[in-house]
């Protein structure tokens, strides 16, 4: 029961907020009121049973909180006369998730602020849950959220969909925020793992909702496929002691085949429709990995082609680095090492541990064990991730023993 109440509340959160925003043009106060209603429901429903109309109940309770707020803040204006409490509030049948996503991922917000606001206002998570997931104190997270709401207000954002002109850049911002939430959960290295894993599940849930609203947008479908195909490998990604297991050495029987199938179907149906964007290409790359029964079955020529396409779309040096790995698998390590020499001139990556890790890997492929061990050691000393540091140190040690 508790589980289903929680799921229900998270689904209802954006709808209830949307209903309030139609009536009261005060995003910050409405969002607070909805949060209070959700907390009240989480206490009462498991104990007293579900109300007949859960959404109506939430809208009514949130409206009362909103009015309490307006009364205490602006008693002089006697707002309550203009906004009487409706005993049977009208329950809108529109889905407000999309409008809220656009509001919360507003370009005026820094990523960390947009993430926090999205998780609360759209995801229906409490401030304490979000603070726990990001390992910062609740008071700090509360401030981050209220500042984000203030920024949205100051930017003059209103409760409506972006215009046709803004739409594409605004959607890019939404997708980026969802992607960051997913990554935070997927790559967690610290803190209670379960809490952080929830972030990936939440990102997938929100992206699924976005995909349901915009089924024809290829990049939304691409991002959802990318998340599914990446997340499918999660259980195989770390060993018993939390150590990192690279893709080539993972136990592929532990990959989630159902999720892979869903991701592959989605990206296969999406790619031919075009236009093709970076999330779709990354999903395709992960599909190629996921479809290989063993590491040696990996279709490297196809991956090389896909990384070539991705390089044309983004100026990200990490993509160039992955392209070099694929190049090595197709054309051998020597030529790929030359690519790395060129890449090392890029200041953004010259000192990055991944450049050294890839160089180490290519030197190992070329049989130059001593040089490879030295590069693994350099990479280990530069990474800020403890599991990765252990992995790289072990690689170096293995080559020298």
């Amino acid at each position: 029961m508790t589980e289903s109440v929680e799921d229900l509340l998270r689904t209802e959160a954006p709808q209830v907020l949307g209903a309030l925003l139609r009536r009261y043009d005060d995003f910050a106060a409405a969002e607070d009121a909805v949060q209070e209603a959700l907390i009240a429901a989480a206490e009462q429903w498991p104990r007293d049973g579900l109300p007949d109309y859960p959404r109506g109940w939430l809208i009514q309770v949130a409206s009362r909180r909103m009015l309490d707020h307006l009364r205490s803040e602006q008693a002089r204006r006697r707002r309550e006369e203009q906004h009487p409490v409706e005993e049977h509030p009208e329950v809108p049948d529109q889905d407000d998730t999309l409008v809220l996503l656009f509001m919360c991922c507003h370009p005026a917000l820094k990523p960390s602020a947009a993430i926090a606001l999205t998780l609360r206002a759209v995801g229906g998570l409490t401030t304490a849950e979000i603070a726990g997931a990001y390992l910062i104190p609740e008071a700090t997270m509360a401030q981050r959220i209220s500042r984000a709401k203030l920024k949205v207000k100051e930017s003059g954002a209103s409760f409506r969909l972006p215009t046709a002109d803004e739409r594409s850049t605004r959607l890019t911002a939404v997708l980026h925020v969802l992607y960051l939430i997913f990554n935070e959960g997927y790559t967690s290295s610290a803190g209670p793992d379960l809490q952080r894993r929830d972030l990936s599940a939440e990102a997938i849930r929100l992206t699924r909702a976005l995909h349901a609203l915009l089924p024809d947008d290829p990049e939304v479908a691409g991002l959802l496929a990318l998340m599914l195909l990446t997340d499918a490998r999660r259980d195989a990604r770390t060993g018993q002691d939390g150590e990192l297991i690279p893709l080539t050495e993972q136990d592929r029987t532990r990959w989630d085949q159902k999720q892979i199938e869903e991701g592959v179907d989605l990206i296969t149906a999406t790619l031919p429709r075009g236009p093709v964007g970076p999330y779709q290409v990354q999903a395709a790359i992960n599909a190629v990995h996921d479809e290989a029964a063993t590491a040696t079955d990996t279709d490297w020529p196809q991956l090389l082609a896909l990384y070539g396409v991705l390089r044309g779309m983004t100026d990200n040096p990490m993509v160039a680095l992955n392209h070099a790995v694929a190049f090595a698998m197709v054309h051998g390590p020597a030529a790929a090492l030359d690519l790395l020499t060129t890449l090392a001139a890029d200041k953004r990556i010259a000192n990055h541990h991944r450049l050294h890790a890839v160089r180490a890997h290519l030197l190992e492929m070329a049989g130059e064990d001593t040089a490879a061990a030295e590069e693994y050691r350099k990479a280990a000393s530069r990474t800020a991730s403890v599991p990765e540091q252990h992995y790289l140190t072990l690689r170096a040690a293995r080559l020298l023993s």
Partner: protein
Amino acid sequence: VKYMLLMHGSDRIDAPPIHTWDLEEVKTHIRFMRDFNTKLVADGEYVHAEGLTGPEEAKVVRAGSDGAPEVTDGPFPESKEYLAGWWVIDVESETRAFEIATAISLAPGPGGVPLRLPIEVRRVPDAPPVDA
């Protein structure tokens, strides 16, 4: 991105030890630190902060060859610097971490003159990269 800011006491700081300051100067210094932390919370960047007692009462513990604790005075009587306190902040960029470190560095000393404390900035381990 989380950063740890380490505040070092040091004989390179152009000020006498804090216990020799006027009471008002000490109060001003402490108020600065407290207000600073309040602002960090308000900016959504505070994770944790503590000040440490002086190096006079510090000890270094090391396991002896028999595994028993060996406790000596520390940290290192001959050393010129010692840890005086730390912050953990969660900020958008390294640039922002430097800004905050600079602001702390300007904490007021005797006569209200900025101490220009040396603040060591260290990134806290974050997540390993997404594979593939």
